[in-house]
């Protein structure tokens, strides 16, 4: 008999993701907590490294959103060296960035979030997986999706090197421009992307909006929080993933503040809780009032729904129409329903594809003036982008030689952490009663955090490759009465 091996994500040190649900004597939820891993030692590792290496270093920290870190880091380097990249370099960066947003959002819509809202939350457990999604959207759609993502990623590799290790953006611009002979290739794929985005919008209308159960879930109180929202906007207050000012709106949708990225420390602060490693960001001047909704609480959200909530509209035609359709259908602005995040993500897929096409066809994009050589250094720089999962800040301090003295990264999931914690707690309270809990109910609780597309990949990705996660239910006497783990493997 072979050796018995247990590969259990729960044993993978203290940092695995988990939801802990505590019941009282009556079997009602006393409190539910979400805890996720923390990246350890990153600042120490960066110290002494040349700042221009940071776009490569930070891109390798995360296997899920390397492009977001690469571009945010390059922008922070621009700021350190007080250099404004040429127009073509900025447009090339923005084009690459929209290609990345397009393919990343597609992955979430069809594959990761799909089991919840394409197959449906009430579907049998054995159907709530990638196979169930493909059966619902059709095999041809699945094949189109794989082919579309591959074509976009091939062009990203052509432009910037390996997607996971882009060696391209650097202080003052990019290393490689777009040769005019290649422009048509990009335009062709961008047109296909727009077409696929239209198809995705239609798929959403046909499959998701006709799923009455899911639509009821979207607007249910269990998945609703009235918080502030934050995101990047262009000068006309339209969504922009690459550049602009940070805009924050209050729970009524009124602009609370608008500021350049460099001022983020004046407006954001961190709160620490004893039960998790994650630091909860909140609006400093509103203050930390605990895990509560409302105008008096500094908790805010980022990511697709927040981006749409802070904007007055979208900068491209079909995305604008989709934006209006969503707000008209849901009847309010801002939309406070967490599960509407998936709808907002589809609107952004349309925007990313249209913006990709605009930039691919832009005459400036083939200019070979792609770098401004840095000549001075301020010793400090901040870069910001909208990652798929929300606002991402990179902040570096350097010595006179440009060596990193200190680095601070605020990742999207930290911005969302407080609201995610509230969402998990509220969903658990609404859905679990009399101590009765099934896997289906726990899945509905998990849906509350899956909608945010939280990224924990900056942890690690040892086998079997999925994020280690567990849900544990505790009774009033401190005994675990149910536990669900993912990825457990036993072998004899």
């Amino acid at each position: 008999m072979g050796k018995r091996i247990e590969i259990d994500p729960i044993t993978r040190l203290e940092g695995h993701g988990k939801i802990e649900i505590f019941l009282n004597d009556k079997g009602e939820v006393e409190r539910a907590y979400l805890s996720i891993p923390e990246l350890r030692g990153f600042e120490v590792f960066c110290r002494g490294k040349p700042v221009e290496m940071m776009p490569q270093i930070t891109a390798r920290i995360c296997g899920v959103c390397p492009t977001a870190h690469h571009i945010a880091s390059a922008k922070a380097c621009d700021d350190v060296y007080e250099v404004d990249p040429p127009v073509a370099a900025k447009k090339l960066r923005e084009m690459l960035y929209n290609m990345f947003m397009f393919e990343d959002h597609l992955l979430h819509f069809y594959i990761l979030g799909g089991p919840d809202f394409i197959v449906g939350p009430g579907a049998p457990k054995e159907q709530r997986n990638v196979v169930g999604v493909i059966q619902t959207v059709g095999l041809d759609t699945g094949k189109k999706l794989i082919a579309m993502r591959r074509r976009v990623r091939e062009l990203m590799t052509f432009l910037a090197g390996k997607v996971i290790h882009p060696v391209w953006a650097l202080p003052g611009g990019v290393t490689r421009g777009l040769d005019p002979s290649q422009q048509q290739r990009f335009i062709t794929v961008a047109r296909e992307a727009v077409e696929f985005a239209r198809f995705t919008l239609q798929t959403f209308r046909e499959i998701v909006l006709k799923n009455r159960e899911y639509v009821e879930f979207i607007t249910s109180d269990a998945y609703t929080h009235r918080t502030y929202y934050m995101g990047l906007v262009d000068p006309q207050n339209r969504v922009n993933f690459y550049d602009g000012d940070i805009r924050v709106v209050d729970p009524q949708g009124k602009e609370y503040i608008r500021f350049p990225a460099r001022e983020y420390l004046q407006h954001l602060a961190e709160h620490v809780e004893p039960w998790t490693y994650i630091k909860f960001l909140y609006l400093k001047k509103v203050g930390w009032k605990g895990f509560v909704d409302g105008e008096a609480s500094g908790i805010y959200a980022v990511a697709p729904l927040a981006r749409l909530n802070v904007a007055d509209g979208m900068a491209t035609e079909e995305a604008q129409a989709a934006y209006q359709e969503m707000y008209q259908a849901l009847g309010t602005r801002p939309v406070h329903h967490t599960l509407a995040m998936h709808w907002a993500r589809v609107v952004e897929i349309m925007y990313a594809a249209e913006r990709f096409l605009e930039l691919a066809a832009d005459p400036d994009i083939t200019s070979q003036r792609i770098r401004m050589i840095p000549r001075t250094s301020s010793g400090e720089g901040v870069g910001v982008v909208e990652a798929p999962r929300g606002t991402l800040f990179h902040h570096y301090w350097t010595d006179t030689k440009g060596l990193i003295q200190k680095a601070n990264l605020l990742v999207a999931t930290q911005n969302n952490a407080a609201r995610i914690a509230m969402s998990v707690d509220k969903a658990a309270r609404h859905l679990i009663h009399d101590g009765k809990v099934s896997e289906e109910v726990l899945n509905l609780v998990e849906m509350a955090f899956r909608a945010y597309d939280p990224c924990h990949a900056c942890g690690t990705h040892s086998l079997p490759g999925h994020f280690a996660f567990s849900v544990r239910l505790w009774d009033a006497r401190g005994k675990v009465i149910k536990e669900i783990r993912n990825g457990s493997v036993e072998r004899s």
Partner: protein
Amino acid sequence: MDPPKQNIVLGLGNTMHGDDGIGIWIVEKLQHRLQALADVWVTEEMGLRLLDFLSGYRTAVIVDSVKTEQGVEGELHFLNLSDFAALPYCGCHQVGLPEMALLAETMGIPFPETVHILGIEIEDPYRVGNTLSPSLKKKVPLLMQQVEKKIERLLGG
């Protein structure tokens, strides 16, 4: 459809996460020695993105780090894809290897008939740093021998 290529050896991990990158360290060092048997690649990508590497091959050998309950650092585990159960749903950001295989099967995407997994036991996959821990580094020469011998046995004919 292109005819299937024969073999791929794929080293996985994240070399920015210390020992998590052991699969990449080992496969890079063995690259020249294994080229006669297979196409040899390393990548820090994960999940669905690995389909781009694996699709079209008949047999794949994946070398990656693994963290098990009773494992000893540097221990080599021999596993097959069937040892990993696919998740009942994709609850988190990544699609793991089992879900990827399931997706490929469902969609008729050419996927290796056989996937061998060589998992190298590590202590801490969370440390940031682009070097191996001293204790694992000492075991690299032995691990190289073990991995090479195993791959020769699996793919050598």
